[in-house]
């Protein structure tokens, strides 16, 4: 099981702050493919991954990053701090 988190407009579009996901996905990209099938809201939120950033266990990661051992995967837009 992986806990998937969403922030900012991704959270609003998906309609969930977090969800537990049973997955066999080997990479972030495979997980995204699976998540898109969960609902239309997921498919819409994750339709353009160019505007989405990913962190695995609170470290920034790429779409092809492996998920082996991952407990938490977060999706969010580019950061706007400062």
């Amino acid at each position, binding site marked *: 099981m992986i806990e998937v988190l969403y*922030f900012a407009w991704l*959270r609003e579009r998906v309609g969930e702050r977090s969800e537990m996901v049973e997955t066999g996905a080997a990479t972030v990209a495979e997980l995204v493919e699976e998540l898109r099938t969960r609902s239309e809201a997921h498919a819409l939120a994750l339709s353009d991954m160019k505007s989405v950033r990913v962190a695995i266990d609170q470290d920034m990661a790429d779409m092809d990053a492996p998920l082996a051992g991952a407990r938490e995967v977060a999706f969010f837009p580019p*950061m*706007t*701090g*400062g």
Partner: protein
Amino acid sequence: MTVSIQSSPFDMGAEVRRFAGSVSGAGAIVTFSGLVRNDGGKLTAMEIEHYPAMTERAVESIRVEAMDRWSLLGAVIVHRYGRLEPGEQIMMVATAARHRADAFMAAQFLMDYLKSRAPFWKKEIGPDGENWVAARDEDEDALARW
């Protein structure tokens, strides 16, 4: 405390005095504070979301990077989250060094990195609705100079 992620307001004067008292041998302290812009009534509030499990560690690693790159005696960062009104302070950085060049450069570096590498997201709330602030290409480009 060198990094503080908090919802409550902070007193910049008190933070800077405490910081100045914690570093010895400083010849320069540079401070910066970012405010919620008062855009002539177009903005009612700003809502800042963050990723609690990641924020403090990400901000601390940016701080450590600045300490490694410049000859600093110290650096502190305060960043707020939650709902803020126009004119309120969002965040501050302070850097201390023997000479001003290091303190100025490190403060700019911290600001550039906090803008696009610290997990905060700003939403502007106005009379006509809400709108997530989009990251700007210039913010990403600003990192290239370091």
